[in-house]
């Protein structure tokens, strides 16, 4: 039944993407190819990040530096969005979907294929699939924040919250590791905390987005 388990994990990981793609109306705009382009940009950015080696020691400052490199993610998202003409929502969704799908394929499919198919059962594959769902929301929020950051008509009062949210998005991974280390969270608890954190960030960014779009 292990192939079944692999199927379970894959559907848990992938179906939300599919649902989001269908329901956000992207399919009407023939956005598939553009999403693939966004995915290709993701790959390119990851390659650039990999070619920046850091010291071998795993300590706090190194992790911080590594997280700073994730700023390249923001640049990548911005690049994708600027090349797509259309409404703000369309741009955000396309960029986020493509980016998140690429991440899903690159970083989760292979571990699932190798691990979930085996005889040995481990909860971590289900957790990995949940994590990909959380990533989707995270990337949508991140794309939205990047888009807002680069708007020329962003009111002064929004600058600060948007910058803070941007910082949170980039350093979220770092913060999560810190939490787990300090509070010695179990794997399920860590997942829960991650979900809550992402939920908070995305709610804030949604709030700001709505305000921005409908204040004109």
């Amino acid at each position, binding site marked *: 039944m292990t192939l079944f388990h692999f199927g379970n994990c894959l559907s*848990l990981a992938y179906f*939300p993407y599919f649902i989001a793609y269908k*329901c956000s109306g992207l399919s009407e705009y023939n956005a598939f190819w553009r999403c693939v382009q966004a995915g290709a940009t993701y790959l390119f950015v990851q390659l650039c990040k990999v070619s920046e080696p850091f010291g071998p020691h795993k300590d706090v400052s190194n992790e911080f530096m590594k997280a700073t490199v994730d700023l390249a993610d923001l640049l990548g998202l911005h690049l994708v969005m600027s090349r797509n003409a259309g409404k703000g929502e369309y741009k955000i969704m396309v960029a986020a979907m493509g980016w998140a799908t690429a991440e899903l394929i690159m970083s989760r499919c*292979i571990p699932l294929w190798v691990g979930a198919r085996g*005889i*040995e*059962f481990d909860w971590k594959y289900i957790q990995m699939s949940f994590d990909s769902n959380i990533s989707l929301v995270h990337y949508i929020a991140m794309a939205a924040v990047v888009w807002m950051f680069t708007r020329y008509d962003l009111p002064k009062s929004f600058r600060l919250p948007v910058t803070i949210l941007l910082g949170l998005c980039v350093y979220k991974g770092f913060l999560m590791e810190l939490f787990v280390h300090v509070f010695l969270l179990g794997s399920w608890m860590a997942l829960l905390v991650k979900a809550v954190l992402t939920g908070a960030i995305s709610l804030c960014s949604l709030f700001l987005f*709505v305000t921005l779009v409908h204040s004109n």
Partner: protein
Amino acid sequence: MFEEASEVLENMLKWSLPLSLVLFLVLVCPLRAEAAHEFSVYRMQQYDLQGQTYGSRNAILNTEARTMEAEVLSRRCVMMRLADFSYEKYQKALQQSAGAVVIILPQNMSTMPQDIVQQFMELETELLATETIVPVYFALEDEELLSIYTQTQISSSSQGSSSAAEVLLHTATANGFQMVTSGAQSKAVSDWAITSLEGRLTGAGGEDLPTIVLVAHYDSFGVAPWLSYGADSNGSGVAILLELARLFSRLYSYKRTHAGYNLLFFLSGGGKFNYQGTKRWLEDNLDHTDSSLLQDNVAFVLCLDTLGNSDNLHLHVSKPPKEGNPQHVLLKELETVAAHQHPDLKFSMVHKKINLADDTLAWEHERFGIRRLPAFTLSHLESHRSPARHSIMDMRSVSSSLEGAGEATAGPHVDLPKLSRNTKVIAETLARVIYNLTEKGVSGDLQIFTEQMQVQEDQLESLVDWLTAQPRAAQLVDKDSSIVNTLEYYLNRYLKDVKRHLVRADKRDPEFVFYDQLKQTMNAYRVKPAIFDLLLAFCIASYLGVLYLAIQNFGLLYSFLRRVTAPRVKQH
């Protein structure tokens, strides 16, 4: 034209991308799962002796684990701990056609109480007596194995019970284990050579001197070959023989003490398999050679078997020696030495006729007796059927310095002072025989092996330690093994004409057949029952349903937020 080309290219890329991805995944990833726990398991003996098959026939395993509390045992791997092991449980498992049996032994046997060790030793012979197709494994316990066992026990005992809800909860939380062994099915080892070693000390003065033969078999036996260390049986015999070789070679190196007897030392292999080494050696020396020490003038043959413990000493004979024979002299000298020099030692002679109708011979001297050579076996055991001769519990005990001398180790083991005392008794006796001391009127109290010539206890200790450092089952010691090489080296230091002697089973009618796959690696994989996957699929489907609804109604959240923000804008 370029536009068409670019369109075609675009379409091609569009379709090749997912295909190449799938291909990449399929090619790159061989299935290599990591197990929850990997450990060595030692299989029960499997051999044929004189056409009769013994032991466990099978070696491969890929089944779920259960403990004895479970109701359904068929085609499952039954795990038992030594402390809970009993023959009835074993029989029950076999009757229900279990897939395999794994018996978990504690790392340190000395922690087991005496009665459990005794019971297990008696069971060893019974286990081997019934030939079975179920593979039986022994594993040494460690923390992870113990936790696997406890988890399996909990899930096994709760199987019979409970309502549907409990079963559901149970499937979600509990862990099952799948035990898989690496390695192939066991098959007969072809052309296995059992090695024996001989060496001699030639007597002084002329031809036709009488010969005394000293024999000890160096292999060990137990229910699992890789776990048979054979400390007392027969590591003690080998240690004594080597120490005697050292002492007498020293005596023979001085002209004044060079006696008029030839001393022939023989370390036989395959002793636990009906003395195969000795049998072939005798055939070669008596049937196939023109002249050999064994043919001419043999005073007697003394076999040493299990002499590492206890205050008893028995001389086993198949025919009580008659007056005036060298054998009788030996008997008398043994009595003298025991009475005068070691009053705590209880010496006696045990007479047992050779019974050729038995499956196997009792003691090693019976091989010589069949060829009409006068022979005895010296042992502290009274009966050849004693389980101490065939047990994996026979180990070099943890040194008595650790827990204080009061702690007795449960199983058979070597007690060094007693081993040393027995060595001295035998040495003194042999000296009295070869120098004819009683006839010359030397008192029974005179000790020859003292001061520089004394029996060296450290030497004995290091020999026994070395012998018990690795298993010495006959199936594991081939002619290139380090044990044989080291024994040969040792004999070469003190004796002359050290020769190897090989025994190979006859092709058409083999006296013994050994099988391989005696040590394997077992992997325990954590598995969930099939119903768990269905349950999980159901949960995921409902989760996805909820998600779908949420996303469909995302617009509600959006308009809610709009309404929340709108009045704020108006207030500017």
